[in-house]
């Protein structure tokens, strides 16, 4: 009996650990291989944008190696950053995004709290309904929405079409359902005893939300905020349809409509504008990346 146990203890680990590490080494090699391929695939466009943005129009149209800058210049950057028009687009985008994020959070956080915690008749159906509205594509909605706003304008005299603030009504139709859904999931991962303890401690529903749920669900809240910001910053179809005057345009549409004149593409400035436009979300992501990932994986593990 004793000899058998000693035998096992000395022999089995060698075989086991040997094969484990060999498996692991191969798994690592394969994952690096695929990660490098993906990195190249996804980083090529931004790199190409950066290269092009540093070239003059002459160099872009010249038949040289497109992957190398022979005469680097910042003229695209200076001309865009000194152009009132471009700064106007940037400003419009910033204002719209900040307002949309604020509106979205003010609606979706209390909505998610109510749907996940205050059991009322039809709350489960309503929660599913909220998510279903997110599944309706915007390409399907913009024509009826345009018609609606036109009718409202005709009847009330309130001009909504071709005003930047119409976007404050339009974007939340995309952001509110998704953010509500994220927050429902996040709130659901908070143990029920926590709000019961708060209720017994004397907190109202509102105090439970502001003093317990929001601080505890902060990673989820940040994830939802980043999502709302990204959606409203990058939204293209709605502003293209609903705004036309150059002083009302947001950046993605502004770049396309003002830097493409007929069939003349001002590639250097288009690439520069796109890079500058991508900067704010990138900076926000870089700072809040850890929170964002923690938020998206919440609910997978309780904690």
């Amino acid at each position, binding site marked *: 009996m004793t000899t058998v146990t000693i035998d096992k203890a000395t022999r089995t680990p060698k075989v086991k650990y040997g094969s484990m590490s060999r498996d692991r080494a191969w798994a690592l090699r394969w994952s690096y291989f695929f990660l490098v391929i993906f990195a190249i695939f996804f980083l090529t466009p931004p790199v190409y944008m950066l290269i092009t943005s540093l070239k003059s129009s002459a160099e872009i149209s010249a038949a040289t190696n497109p992957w190398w800058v022979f005469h680097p210049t910042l003229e695209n950057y200076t001309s865009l950053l000194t152009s009132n028009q471009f700064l106007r687009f940037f400003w419009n985008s910033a204002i719209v995004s900040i307002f949309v994020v604020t509106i979205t959070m003010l609606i979706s956080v209390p909505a998610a709290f109510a749907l996940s915690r205050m059991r009322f008749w039809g709350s489960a159906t309503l929660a599913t309904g909220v998510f279903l509205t997110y599944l309706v594509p915007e390409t399907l909605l913009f024509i009826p929405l345009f018609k609606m706003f036109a009718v409202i304008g005709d009847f009330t005299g309130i001009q909504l079409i071709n005003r930047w603030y119409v976007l404050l009504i339009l974007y939340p139709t995309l952001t509110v359902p998704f953010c509500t859904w994220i927050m429902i999931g996040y709130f659901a991962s908070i143990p029920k005893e*926590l709000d019961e303890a708060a209720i017994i401690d004397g907190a109202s529903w509102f105090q439970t939300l502001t003093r317990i749920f929001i601080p505890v669900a902060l990673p989820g809240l940040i994830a939802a905020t980043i999502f709302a910001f990204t959606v409203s910053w990058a939204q293209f179809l709605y502003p293209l349809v609903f705004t036309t005057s150059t002083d009302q345009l947001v950046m993605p549409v502004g770049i396309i409509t003002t830097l493409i004149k007929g069939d003349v593409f001002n590639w250097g400035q288009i690439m520069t504008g796109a890079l500058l436009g991508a900067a704010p979300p990138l900076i926000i992501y870089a700072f809040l990346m850890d929170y964002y990932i923690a938020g998206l994986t919440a609910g997978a593990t309780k904690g």
Partner: protein
Amino acid sequence: MADVALRKVVKRYDDVEAVRGIDLDIADHEFIVLVGPSGCGKSTTLRMIAGLEDISDGDILIGGDVVNDVPPKDRDIAMVFQNYALYPHMTVAENMSFGLRLKHYPKAEIKARVTEAARLLDITDLIDRKPKQLSGGQRQRVAMGRAIVRNPKVFLFDEPLSNLDAKLRVQMRIEIKKVHQKVRTTTVYVTHDQVEAMTLADRVVVMNKGRIEQIGTPNELYHKPATRFVAGFIGSPAMNFIPCRLEDVGGTLQIRLTDRIAFALPPARAARYNALPRTEKLLLGIRPEHLTESHAHLAPGVETFDTVLDVTEPMGMETLVYFGLDGTPVCGRVDPNAGAKDGAPMRLAMDLNNMHLLNEETGVVL
């Protein structure tokens, strides 16, 4: 501090009755433990007292006032949860003072109360830590601290020790008892662990299937159980139930267990059971500690019989022996030096002065 009363309290979920009409009077300063198997309605009852569940029928009174429709925060109660339910983003001090801060108590008084509670629970050093930096036992102390600082009328405990390991559970059990001796707040404590119930309670309420089986002090429940459920639930190892019947042999009342084994009842017991019909199907309830090894000099009412042991379990201070009587498994407790061995014959003594007789059909102790 206040007394608590439940009057015919019922809880219905759709068409399932979780609690079926409970009457209970809890005196001021009393430590009451609700105990029973899972699904017996004990937690639901506690949550109804807390106000976290609506009452389907009946009344709950705290300090003489009906609180059926009073929200939890106005009932002046404090609750300790199984998973502690500490606010993870707050320090220990902030956790404990949360309720007081919501009620806008003066800062000095909050500080004094938190310091006092922390001293009482021996967590003064942890006051600035976050819950995740604490061990399970420390978290449970903080949860108790949060209840104590509020100085409520009633403490409610919902299985507070179930998440702790066995050793810590024993330690915290003593802590809870000490705290109650100091603060004397009326306490309702829910557990499924009968040892916890016995050690902590002034009175134990045994619940089963949404009803109260018996209310009594730990000793009453142990020595005078009212039903088969209570007799089997309280005590470990559990009471043995052996089918038997009564018979008259030569003017004395006998209890017959098997064809071979029949004992004359001690006079006090004979008088008590004499009126029972001899045809009735009965169960002999006898605790393992009243089934011991045989001695040369036996007290009156102690009868011996021979059996063959199936299994023995040495526990150190005693040895548990298992054997069969006509197919009914029976457990006894003998001295570790009595020579009990697996598969060996042994002479055992049954102390009939401590027997119980139950109606097999109704489960009522006669």
